[in-house]
């Protein structure tokens, strides 16, 4: 169902007024008594209690569903969140390998092969496999990332057994048909064409190559030639490299440990083998500092990315980095959103964040801005970034983001799937599953000085990676002027595959 939903967006912030304090009672209050819609005199009440934010009640207890961790006989690690309030089960199996292992010339191999695996089984072709899922109302899926690939199933409890049969059949005897591969390759090539032509898609495509490096495993671009050279044999080899040793099974929903042992364990007894964990890639090798530009004639907005490689998820100052990014642009209330959206009206929203590969991080500020405001918006992003380094954050901002991180904890435990994805993420980064037990203390301990130190260490305002995708004729002159004025390096025009066209 395609319903049009226009959202106000999750973005805003102004100078954080400490809204727990009652506003000045006189402030802007013009009683609208006497407004008489529908012909009747009406009075909106002037009540004292409305002038201040209500006091919170006594907080209730948060009963965190326990995560059980155990091993099946096959040696497979299991993390189970058992909840019986809804008759649903989600499970997924994650293997610690990913696209960083793609050979040169076959970029996209992992992603394509995971898709191919989920097209059917030796017995069921694509259509029969899809029909069976639809008949059961279950979903069998596969996905891939830089250092993790996963496949899973979600089902109502009443269809779990046949759903597991189908899923395990796919895992153990995937179809890996040549015609499915050819169809997937053709569709991916067509998508590549579209991704080069639409501003947002092109910016997403190019950004990792700019900030991590065009030859780096985290930054390499995929082209048609890669897809053409990936064979069925490559995918069979890839699939046979997925073994249960080093893998983790995540289960959430209406299942007990015993049921996992009985239903899943029994179906996996003959699966041997080990997934080889790839070595960490070398440190990121960003392109040299410049404004990288890709031209899409007719673009009405420009896509902006500004950032640099950042610390790892496991860095000791993670909490300070997180709070800094939150203040700069973690939500509607962040500085870049309040500036670009609520103050200047340049954009629908703007954000800043650290994101994390397994072995590296990236810091990025992003926005999609009105074409004629491109250089001005970029200038504002840069000045907000510098301000993070040059001035301490305000105690109000720090308190707001500490409160937000801590007070929103119950939302992390709202549903079993959410809880499980929290655990899966911890497990991916090698963090302990009881990470959140110490979370409140770690967040609360951060002071303005800690954030300042972290900002100076982990937010850079020189040698930045900058990417702009927009209408060249309209925006290049102002970008060149900005680059000169701000000493950002040259403006380098890239083609949609990340090759340098010219340097201005």
């Amino acid at each position, binding site marked *: 169902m395609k319903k049009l939903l226009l959202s106000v967006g999750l973005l805003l912030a102004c100078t954080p007024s400490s809204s727990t304090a009652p506003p000045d009672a006189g402030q802007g209050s013009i009683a609208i008594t006497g407004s008489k819609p529908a012909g009747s005199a009406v009075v909106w009440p002037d009540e004292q209690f*409305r002038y201040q934010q209500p006091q919170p009640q006594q907080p209730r207890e948060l009963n*965190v569903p326990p995560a059980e961790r155990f091993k099946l006989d096959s040696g497979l690690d299991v993390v189970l969140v058992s909840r019986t309030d809804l008759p649903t089960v989600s499970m997924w199996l994650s293997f610690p390998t990913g696209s960083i292992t793609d050979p040169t010339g076959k970029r996209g191999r992992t992603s394509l092969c995971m898709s191919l695996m989920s097209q059917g089984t030796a017995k069921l072709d694509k259509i029969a496999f899809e029909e069976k899922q639809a008949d059961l109302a279950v979903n069998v899926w596969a996905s891939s990332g830089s250092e993790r690939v996963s496949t899973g199933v979600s089902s109502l409890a009443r269809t779990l057994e046949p759903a597991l049969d189908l899923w395990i059949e796919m895992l153990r005897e995937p179809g890996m048909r040549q015609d499915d591969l050819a169809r997937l390759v053709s569709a991916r090539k067509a998508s590549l064409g579209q991704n080069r032509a639409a501003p947002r898609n092109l910016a997403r495509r190019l950004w990792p190559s700019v900030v991590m490096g065009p030859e780096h495993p985290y930054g390499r671009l995929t082209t048609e030639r890669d897809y053409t050279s990936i064979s069925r044999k490559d995918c069979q080899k890839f699939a046979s490299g997925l073994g249960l040793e080093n893998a983790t099974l995540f289960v959430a929903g209406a299942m007990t440990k015993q049921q996992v042992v009985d239903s899943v364990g029994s179906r996996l007894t003959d699966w041997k083998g080990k997934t080889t964990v790839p070595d960490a890639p070398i440190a990121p090798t960003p392109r040299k500092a410049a404004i990288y530009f890709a031209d899409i004639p007719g673009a009405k907005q420009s896509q902006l990315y500004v950032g640099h490689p950042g610390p790892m998820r496991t860095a000791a100052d993670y909490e300070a980095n997180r709070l800094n990014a939150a203040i700069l642009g973690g939500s509607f209330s962040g500085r870049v959103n309040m500036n670009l959206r609520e103050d200047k009206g340049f954009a629908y929203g703007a954000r800043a964040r650290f994101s994390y590969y397994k072995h590296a991080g990236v810091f990025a500020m992003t926005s999609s801005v009105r074409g004629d405001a491109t250089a001005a918006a970029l200038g504002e992003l840069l000045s907000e970034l510098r301000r993070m380094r040059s001035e301490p954050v305000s105690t109000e901002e720090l308190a707001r983001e*500490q409160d937000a991180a801590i007070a929103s904890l119950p939302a992390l435990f709202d549903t079993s799937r959410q809880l499980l994805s929290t655990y899966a993420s911890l497990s991916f980064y090698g963090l302990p599953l*009881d990470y959140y037990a110490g979370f409140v203390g770690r967040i609360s301990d951060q002071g303005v000085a800690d954030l300042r130190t972290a900002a100076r260490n982990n937010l850079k305002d020189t040698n930045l990676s900058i990417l702009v995708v927009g209408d060249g004729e309209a925006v290049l002159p102002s970008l060149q002027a900005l680059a000169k004025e701000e000493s950002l390096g040259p403006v380098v025009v890239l083609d949609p595959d990340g090759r340098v066209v010219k340097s201005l």
Partner: protein
Amino acid sequence: MAMPRLRWGAVVFSVLLGSFMINPGTVTASAPASEPSVDVPFERYTLDNGLEVILHSDRSVPLVAVDVWYHVGSGDEEPGLSGFAHLFEHMMFQGAKHIGSDVHFDTLRKIGGTGVNGTTNKDRTNYYEVVPSHQIETALWLESDRMGYLLDLLNQEALDNQIDVVRNERRQRYDNVPFGLERFAVAAGLYPEGHPYRYLTIGKHEDLETAKLEDVRAFFKQWYVPSNATLVLAGDFEMKEGRALVDKWFATFPKFDKPGHTAPELPPIAKTQRTELDDTFAKFTRLHFAWQSPAKLAKGDAELTVLGRVLGSSGWGRLYKRLVLGSEAAQRVSVYQSGHGFSGEFHVVVDVKPGRDLAEVEAAVAEELRRAAQQPITDVELRRVVNGIESGLVWGLEEVLGRAERLQFFNHYSGKPGYYEEYVQTFRDLTPEGIQTQAKATLEAHRVEVVSRPAKAETKSETKPGGA
């Protein structure tokens, strides 16, 4: 029993705003996979001022969803004010008398609010937040203040800014993406000049640009009265306490007449016509057919919902099988019924791969549409769709906000928050023959056809400051 390795212990989290007791859960004895209730129990009542209230108490997680639906959408807009209902939604986040200016998001962020947003469609505008349950009253404070006292802080500067923001939203979602503009062409074919559905909820730049403060005031006074709103509280609270809090924050508001909706005239499409567009950003050719169809939950809505899935479902849908998996001429296929308050739309959308023949795709689409109108679908196809709809409704219950929205949705369109059972039964009662009858009635009428083609490289649209 293996001991859980993960030990939370009974940790007391000291928080500036209070504290959460985090307890280790206990594993209950194995519950057999039975058919649990997917009921969402609720109480509904109306305050003297006409505000409708629906309470759903579920104490399993210390969260409460506060969800307000105002029964006004872009379908109620006056000519010349397209996009206004949505622009107004933005203004509802700009501040009100007691809470102050532009602090809505900040305030909710500080108390751990999540999922904070507002959305507008043709029929209604909703505002919601999920907050830790001990902070329920702050959410009610914010919602009641904008319901009662929005106009006190209304100012030109905020309106000018939000006009910019909304026009940026339109650029981001429509003007700067592939196939953003063909949606306007489809609506222009379905609805005559002056019909509010014609301009889509986002509206026209030229209308947005000229919105006035007095329009905001008039819209607020006409539509944002308590008697035109429904407040849902869902989650961790006691019913008695919920009622008392709603009374405190909303019951002293004055009563106004509930505004009526005027269904605009909708003449049938006189003749099937085709519009051809050049799309600056597209690399596929998009074929888009659309028909006028029954309103949401009206007779025929369920039939066409099923038909859409039979034709378009990824994997097994007839057109998907034929065009994406079979001839591989299409990149994607999308077929759906979209019911709104006054009337509905049935859409068939196919993206044709570069280098493939549009005529061949059209012939296949025509054949499948003919078949749908002339032969009943199979029992297997029908059962598949009904299973999917039932299971989708169960998955939708996971989150507390999902439950709040379900109560609102059914309440708005059927007048019954608990309409779920009847809704599912409607689908269970469908027959292939009944679906065929509806398919014939809808698909054999005149339709809109829009074909968008990738613009040639030299076609360059003018970039005017401020956008199109």
